[in-house]
């Protein structure tokens, strides 16, 4: 599980200062340090690497252009992930906008409950279609990257209450969308203990 706190802040901070001075080698180091994390973060939203790369490179273009405006009060990783979040959000909205009205209607009418034999992640991939872009990204930040509530609030520049609400509503939507999965869970929950650190 990745956490923002695990990134050495000093190293990133020094690199970002160098980037602000126009040092492209420092930008390369930052890029390689974040590439995998960002690719993973974005991979659920598009299986095509070139599209993932587009968002990553747009993110680092902003990092290059805005490094001198970074404020020491925040973590470099939070700042970079925040840029990536907004870039991805914009991209997802554009993708959605480009879909034809027909396909959108068809998508909203089709059942989001996949075949029984599908694995959980495939179910979730289907369920993701009913969530808003913000809900999807928040879920991915929490469970894909393991970020805390406060970290997600910082990355998304949203109040903590908003982040909580996004997660809550995402869960409720997915539960309605995936009754078979929820049923399985409920059956399991009746039999199993909840206690202990997950």
């Amino acid at each position, binding site marked *: *599980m990745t*956490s923002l706190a695990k990134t050495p802040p000093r190293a990133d901070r020094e690199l970002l200062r160098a980037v602000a001075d*126009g*040092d*492209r*080698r420092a930008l*390369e180091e930052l*890029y*390689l340090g974040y*590439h*995998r*994390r960002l*690719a993973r*973060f974005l*991979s*659920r939203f598009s299986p095509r*690497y070139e*599209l*993932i*790369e*587009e*968002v*990553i*490179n*747009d*993110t*680092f*273009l*902003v990092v290059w*252009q805005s490094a001198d405006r970074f404020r020491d009060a925040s973590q470099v990783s939070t700042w970079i992930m925040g840029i990536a979040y907004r*870039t991805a959000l*914009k991209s997802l909205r554009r993708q959605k906008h480009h879909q034809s009205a027909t396909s959108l209607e068809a998508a909203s009418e089709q059942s989001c409950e996949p075949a029984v034999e599908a694995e*959980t*992640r495939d*179910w*979730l*991939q289907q369920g993701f279609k009913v969530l808003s872009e913000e809900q999807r990204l928040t*879920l991915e930040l*929490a*469970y*894909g990257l*393991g*970020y*805390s*509530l406060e970290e997600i609030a910082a990355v998304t520049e949203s109040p903590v209450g908003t982040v*909580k*609400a996004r*997660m*809550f509503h995402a*869960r409720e939507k*997915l*539960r309605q969308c995936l009754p078979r999965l929820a049923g399985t*869970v*409920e059956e*399991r*929950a009746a039999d199993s203990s*909840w*206690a202990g*650190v*997950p």
Partner: protein
Amino acid sequence: MDSASEHAEINELLSWYVNGTLESRDRERLERHLAACALCREDLAFERTLAAGLANAPAVEYMPAPSLRRLHERLDALAADSATGPAMPQAEPQAPMATDVGRGQTAPARVPHARFASRGLLAASLAGVALALTYWVVAHLEGAASPGADYRTVTMNAPRAPRTVIRAVFAPNLSVGELQRMLDDAGLRIVAGPTEAGVYSLAATSSRPVSESLAMLRQHEAVRFAESTEPLATPGAEASAGSPPPD
């Protein structure tokens, strides 16, 4: 706090209980509540299923090196653009999922021919474009156009050593002996490097196909990335040009 408020507040924290980032005080409070709340236990079980489903990202082939090269190309275009005006080469095609971040600066202004009122003006403008292109190429090669004048990308612009077929970066803790064995096995030898970015230029010592040597290199954990200097014959070879860098 009444029990309904307590339930609502606790319920909204379940996701971070599951991902293990909840503060200890909240965690203890949540666990006390769970002991008495069947609804929250159900929600917790569902959250855990969501977490398990999202824990593994879809399989994506990571290609940081070519991606980084393309970023540098955009930055080069950006630097050249600011140095010479808008008539610069297009950095890259617009991808379907492309965002418009920074596009205003990177995408050159495309001047429609209809704008030119006379042939003389067109010729003068073309001469300007040619000058700008010349400046861009020179600046690109010398690294003078970028803010970091001594900067050199990992994947392009580096003077290529003779007969170089592969460029690679190795883990810094790799011993000389291990490196030598790896290269011998793959039919390669070092002809240049490492550069400041740690890049080695490798030449073939046998008739083994480059794609095969490349595949052998990439099997080693100590190889941070390896790529052919020339397009490989195998279709889709570029798609696997980079190994993921360590986190």
